[in-house]
């Protein structure tokens, strides 16, 4: 088996030198030869192993997809275990060695996996102190711990290291939920902006990405995709590639691939291969998408909230409003198309993949190969950022199937067209909201409906390889928990919010960063702005009328303060030139259960061209306890900039047969000249649980920008993306 080891890297931190080392090699099993390392979620040994040299290996089923958990999770363990950060080795996403802590999704790595690891460390630390009490004959109150050494406070020479106490042996302990945690005031590692261990390698070419990984004897494969999504393969002319040295065809059902020893030969053969496919035109006409969505059968209704009597309140309202908001189909748009290596032989599958969900992928590969999951071993390697379930899992199953069919180790590298055209998509989203205001302009009724596909939430999206190869799969779709945040983040007295979960959706769906929570917050936070405008109220003051949650009030006030918000109703009516400036606000409590965020967008609207620029974006952010402040900042920057791109530019195009947005020209994203400056304030709450950071702030740009455009020119944008063409149409409609 090929292995890979990253080199030890040194980093300078302001206060001194920190050495953080990581290994991607399967380390010697802590339990001794012949024993399998435990991976159960309730065992300390699943998460931690103390070695004789004083280093500690920690194991997590989560993976660092570019978010920085490769340093944040070790910070939590080092802090709670009282060992130096440079003594921690991390093993991530290896299905044989790591506990299944769920896919790396939902802004839950620190919040769920980090907290599990922290509790494992606390349990281990307590056990080590108990051992030292026995061996040193002193009560625990007289002992202190520093850097993996337990010593008698009054006689520091009487000491025992963790390595001496348990080096290379198992704890054989269950995670103790009552094991005492450190007082946050004593933290020295948690909260620090510790630099990421992978960045020096990534900026010098020393880091090994999935795309760089090779095994001996490996073939390069390319999958030849049908010209229409549902087309089936009728015939293949294998002689059409005979001019390409060493290239051969691999086929099962409609799954068609070419393999070659050289990658370029495989690329050329895939392009040159002649195949005949059936016709298929099963996609809805793009111009009739929203009609199609409304006419799709509803599988079930999810009631997000139903309190008071919205209907009766609406009937007695002094003023009612109604608006419909739509949000385009998006692709993940990873910079590097998916890639994987598979070696399937003797009834076992050895897989290297950049999947965000190695433990789920194990089942997907097993399904595709018709094997037992215990015979499938997945090891994670960094790919390009995925922002949800992109093409990685499909490319992995492609590689597994081609390896099975050829009997050789196989590397599959997707093309740009594969990634844009065939990754599962963020589904089209439609929200309709009605509101009733009393004579003072206060919201007395709120009634929201959402049309989105259903989610078989424990199922992975069906893989392309299994579908094309004719391997029977259970019908299931999973776009993620996209009904969340449909209930407003304000305790209106009479409110109802219902998600119509549709039985089908045009494209194979999956989750893309902040799935549903982004689209629902967009609708809610534009609609409350419409209510504020109808009431002639300042948008920040209007939201504060309803907010009762002190942490929500604090982030909204912080964002307004950061932006130097000047209270007045929108729109401003004092601009006459071609460029109009405006600002808009948005607020949300993520999933109405965790991280609080508020933001202000500054925009410039060109009345002549219809172009919108977001020049500045202010964010206030409360995720409870901050683990790594620089990591939090990086994630907020990413959330905002990526979502400004999605809000202003991104929209998947298709015809009746296939996706036609197949590269960066046909699916443009935000570029440097148009990237806003992101200004933020972090609210740290050391005594509260650490919550997610990877998604919440992405809720803010769509509503804040829509509200800012309204502030600038009095035109409401209710259809993402806010393209120049849509703005000009909206301006013309307003004039008419």
């Amino acid at each position, binding site marked *: 088996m090929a292995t890979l080891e990253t080199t030890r890297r040194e980093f300078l931190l302001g206060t001194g030198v920190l050495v953080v080392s990581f290994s991607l090699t399967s380390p010697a099993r802590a339990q001794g030869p012949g024993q399998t390392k435990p991976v159960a979620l309730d065992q300390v040994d699943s998460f931690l192993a103390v070695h004789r040299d004083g280093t500690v290996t920690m194991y997590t089923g989560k993976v660092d997809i*570019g978010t920085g958990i490769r340093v944040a999770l070790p910070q939590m363990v080092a802090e709670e275990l009282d060992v130096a950060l440079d003594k921690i080795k991390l093993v991530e996403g290896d299905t044989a060695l790591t506990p299944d802590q769920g896919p790396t999704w939902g802004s839950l790595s620190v919040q769920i996996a980090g907290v599990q690891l922290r509790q494992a460390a606390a349990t281990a630390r307590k056990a080590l102190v108990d051992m030292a009490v026995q061996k040193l004959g002193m009560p625990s109150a007289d002992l202190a711990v520093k850097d993996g050494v337990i010593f008698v406070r009054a006689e520091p020479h009487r000491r025992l290291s963790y390595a001496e106490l348990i080096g290379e042996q198992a704890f054989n302990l269950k995670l103790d939920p009552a094991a005492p945690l450190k007082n946050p005031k004593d933290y020295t590692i948690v909260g620090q902006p510790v630099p990421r261990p992978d960045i020096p390698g990534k900026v010098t070419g020393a880091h090994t990405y999935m795309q760089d990984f090779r095994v001996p004897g490996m073939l390069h494969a390319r999958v030849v995709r049908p010209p229409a999504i549902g087309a089936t393969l009728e015939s293949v002319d294998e002689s059409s590639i005979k001019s390409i040295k060493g290239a051969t065809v691999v086929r099962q059902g409609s799954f068609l691939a070419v393999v070659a020893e050289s990658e370029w030969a495989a690329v050329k053969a895939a392009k040159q291969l002649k195949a005949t496919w059936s016709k298929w035109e099963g996609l809805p006409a793009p111009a009739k998408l929203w009609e199609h969505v409304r006419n799709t059968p509803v599988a079930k209704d999810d009631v997000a909230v139903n309190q008071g009597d919205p209907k009766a309140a609406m009937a007695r309202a002094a003023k009612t409003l109604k608006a419909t908001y739509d949000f385009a189909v998006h692709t993940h748009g990873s910079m590097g*198309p998916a890639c994987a290596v598979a070696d399937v032989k003797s009834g076992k599958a050895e897989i290297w993949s950049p999947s965000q969900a190695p433990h789920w992928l194990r089942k997907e590969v097993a399904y595709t190969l018709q094997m037992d999951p215990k015979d499938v071993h997945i090891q994670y390697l960094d790919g390009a950022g995925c922002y949800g379930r992109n093409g990685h899992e499909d490319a992995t199953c492609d590689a597994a199937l081609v390896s099975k069919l050829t009997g050789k180790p196989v590397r599959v590298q997707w093309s740009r067209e594969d990634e844009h055209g065939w990754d599962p998509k963020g589904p089209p989203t439609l929200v309709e909201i009605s509101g009733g205001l009393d004579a003072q302009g206060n919201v007395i009724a709120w009634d929201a409906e959402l049309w989105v596909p259903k989610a078989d939430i424990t199922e992975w999206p069906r893989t392309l390889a299994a579908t094309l190869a004719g391997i029977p799969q259970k019908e299931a779709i999973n776009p993620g928990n996209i009904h969340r945040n449909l209930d407003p983040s304000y305790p209106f007295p009479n409110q109802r919010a219902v998600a119509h979960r549709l039985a089908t959706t045009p494209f194979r769906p999956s989750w893309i960063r902040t799935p549903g929570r982004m689209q629902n917050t967009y609708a809610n936070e534009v609609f409350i702005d419409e209510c504020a405008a109808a009431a002639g109220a300042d948008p920040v003051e209007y939201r504060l009328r309803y907010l009762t949650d002190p942490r929500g009030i604090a982030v909204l006030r912080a964002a307004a303060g950061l932006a130097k918000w000047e209270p007045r109703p929108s729109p401003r009516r004092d601009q006459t030139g071609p460029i109009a400036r405006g600002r808009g606000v948005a607020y949300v409590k993520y999933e109405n259960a965790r991280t609080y965020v508020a933001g202000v967008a500054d925009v410039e609207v060109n009345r002549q061209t219809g172009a919108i620029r977001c020049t500045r974006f202010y964010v206030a952010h409360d995720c409870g306890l901050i683990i790594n402040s620089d990591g939090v900042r990086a994630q907020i920057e990413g959330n905002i*900039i990526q979502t400004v791109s999605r809000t202003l530019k991104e929209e998947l195009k298709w015809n009746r047969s296939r996706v036609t947005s197949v590269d*960066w020209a046909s699916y443009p994203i935000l570029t440097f000249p148009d990237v806003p400056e992101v200004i933020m304030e972090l609210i740290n709450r050391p005594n509260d649980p650490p919550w997610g950071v990877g998604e919440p702030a992405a809720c803010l740009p769509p509503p804040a920008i829509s509200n800012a455009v309204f502030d600038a020119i009095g035109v409401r944008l209710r259809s993402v993306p806010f393209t120049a063409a849509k703005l000009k149409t909206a301006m013309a409609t307003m004039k008419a």
Partner: protein
Amino acid sequence: MVTLSVNGKTQRLDVEPDTPLLYVLRDNLGLHGPKFGCGLAQCGSCTVLVDGRAVRSCSVAVGKLGPGKVVTLEGLGTVQKPHPVQRAFIEEQAAQCGYCINGMVMQATAFLSARQTSPSEREIRQALQRNLCRCGTHQRIIAAVKRAATLMGKGA
């Protein structure tokens, strides 16, 4: 046979002349810096320097490269001895997934090397406008290029 100069070494390689430089660098020479992003010269992930100029290696056939000296990310510096642009990216923590960062570093190196003075933010944004980043690391990349200009001793 194709002859290339890569990171200061002459390489004689038995490859088809229509092979894009990117595949030769990655598959024949085992380099990891230049990345396959689109194969269409749209994203910049594959950027290398040819005689100091930023070139999209995915779209140049080795047979048509000529005698130009190729420098990749590895040829600029190492973890132990990074080039000032690489050092600036490390100090600004200017990477998320890092897949585009090869292109950012190479484009910025070509841009800064060709001028005597420190660029304005607007000039940096213009210089990088054909390099795409999906994670939203742009703000840090801009800061890193500013820092690199200082490290390289560019005047005001």
